[in-house]
């Protein structure tokens, strides 16, 4: 059973230094209410695992603008000047990861795997310092799983077991991040009774979800 809590209670669980996998793609499908609560609390030195650093005023970009992030594993920074400035000033350390590799590394952690073998990045700076594995005549980069303490995600509906449905392209990284948190907190538009969600339409099974927060976003 997932527990229904407030955004402030969710934010209070996160400690300085926590590693947080956060869902969303350019802030679409981002857990804005929980992000705002973290900003309000001002918890610093966070490590974030995200597809992109979003916009200065939307999504995880707000954590960056408020200087709460000390390091990030991310595939794209291009829409957020603040993170590039903080990176150039040495305030934030960045590991840039190809987006598909990032998703598989996070998924691997949630799935109990040590890592994945991928051809993406061969012959580029991405392979530097990594083990290359030859398997049946093909080369792959060994990419380790990415661990996280918390996953903070956004879904459309949750039932009280934490089963989740999503909306259109707001699904994006959310079901993957949901698998990977030692503690997973889902921000949702609506909470329904057990039995109200068609099991065929559940995308994230409730087993992955520990806490549910109702969104304040309009």
């Amino acid at each position, binding site marked *: 059973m997932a527990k229904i809590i407030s955004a402030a209670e969710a934010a209070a669980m996160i400690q300085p230094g926590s590693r947080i996998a956060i869902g969303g793609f350019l802030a679409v499908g981002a857990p804005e209410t929980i992000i705002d609560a973290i900003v309000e609390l001002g918890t610093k030195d966070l490590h974030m695992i995200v597809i992109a650093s979003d916009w200065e005023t939307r999504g995880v970009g707000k954590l960056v603008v408020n200087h709460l992030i000390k390091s990030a594993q991310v595939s794209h920074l291009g829409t957020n000047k603040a993170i590039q400035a903080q990176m150039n000033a040495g305030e934030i350390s960045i590991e840039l990861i190809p987006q*598909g*590799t990032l998703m598989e590394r996070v998924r691997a952690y949630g799935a109990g795997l040590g890592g994945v073998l991928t051809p993406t990045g061969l012959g580029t700076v991405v392979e530097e310092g990594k083990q290359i594995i030859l398997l049946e005549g093909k080369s792959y980069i060994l990419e380790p799983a990415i661990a996280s303490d918390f996953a903070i995600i956004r879904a459309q509906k949750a039932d009280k077991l934490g089963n989740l449905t999503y909306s259109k392209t707001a*699904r994006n990284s959310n079901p993957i991040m949901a698998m990977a948190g030692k503690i997973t907190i889902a921000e949702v538009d609506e909470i329904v009774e057990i039995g109200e969600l068609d099991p065929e339409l559940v995308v994230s099974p409730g087993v992955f979800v520990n806490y549910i927060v109702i969104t304040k976003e309009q």
Partner: protein
Amino acid sequence: MANDKRAMIGARIAKELKDGDYVNLGIGLPTEAVNHIPKGVQVLFQSENGMLGVGPNPAAGEEDKDMINAGGGFITALPGASFFDSATSFAIIRGGHIDATVLGALQVDMEGNLANWMIPGKMVPGMGGAMDLVTGAKKVIVAMEHCDKNGNSKVLTKCNLPLTAKAKVSLIITDMAVLQVTPEGLVLCEIAEGLSVDDVIKATEAKLIIPQNVKYF
């Protein structure tokens, strides 16, 4: 780039896309191709944030906040569209299920190497999904201006910017020419109307193989 040149490149990209193809277009110039798919040809466009069957941009006032493409622009869904998570999206890409991807480039070279994700010390936006796309798509097409804004050739003997992928590009479509990457080198297949073969050779740092008949496009 002038609109007529963008349209010319878009039309030429569209010729590479076949009925039933699954295609991923990079942001910017490659998306011009959408406007040039002939009637009766069905091409399904993927957006790597998690969708197949991307439709046209919505009319003003009809945008859906949960419907964006990988560039953050609002989109619509065509009949037969599907949504999926990011890992599935990149399984589609990396697993070889995308027939063609069309991407912009900072540099491309004779061996089909592509650089399009960073300029050290200047621009570090990150690779996003580009490395996976170039690694996994069955056909990688580069669509770009032939020269940069200072007039320097972007078609090189060897890329000197950090690579996106090694030896994956098969076709280069620019405002001046269409070049095929072959084991022997770059073949000048077509030149833009109004240009000569010499114009293209002069604007290209890489050595070109010139066939007997170079067509116009």
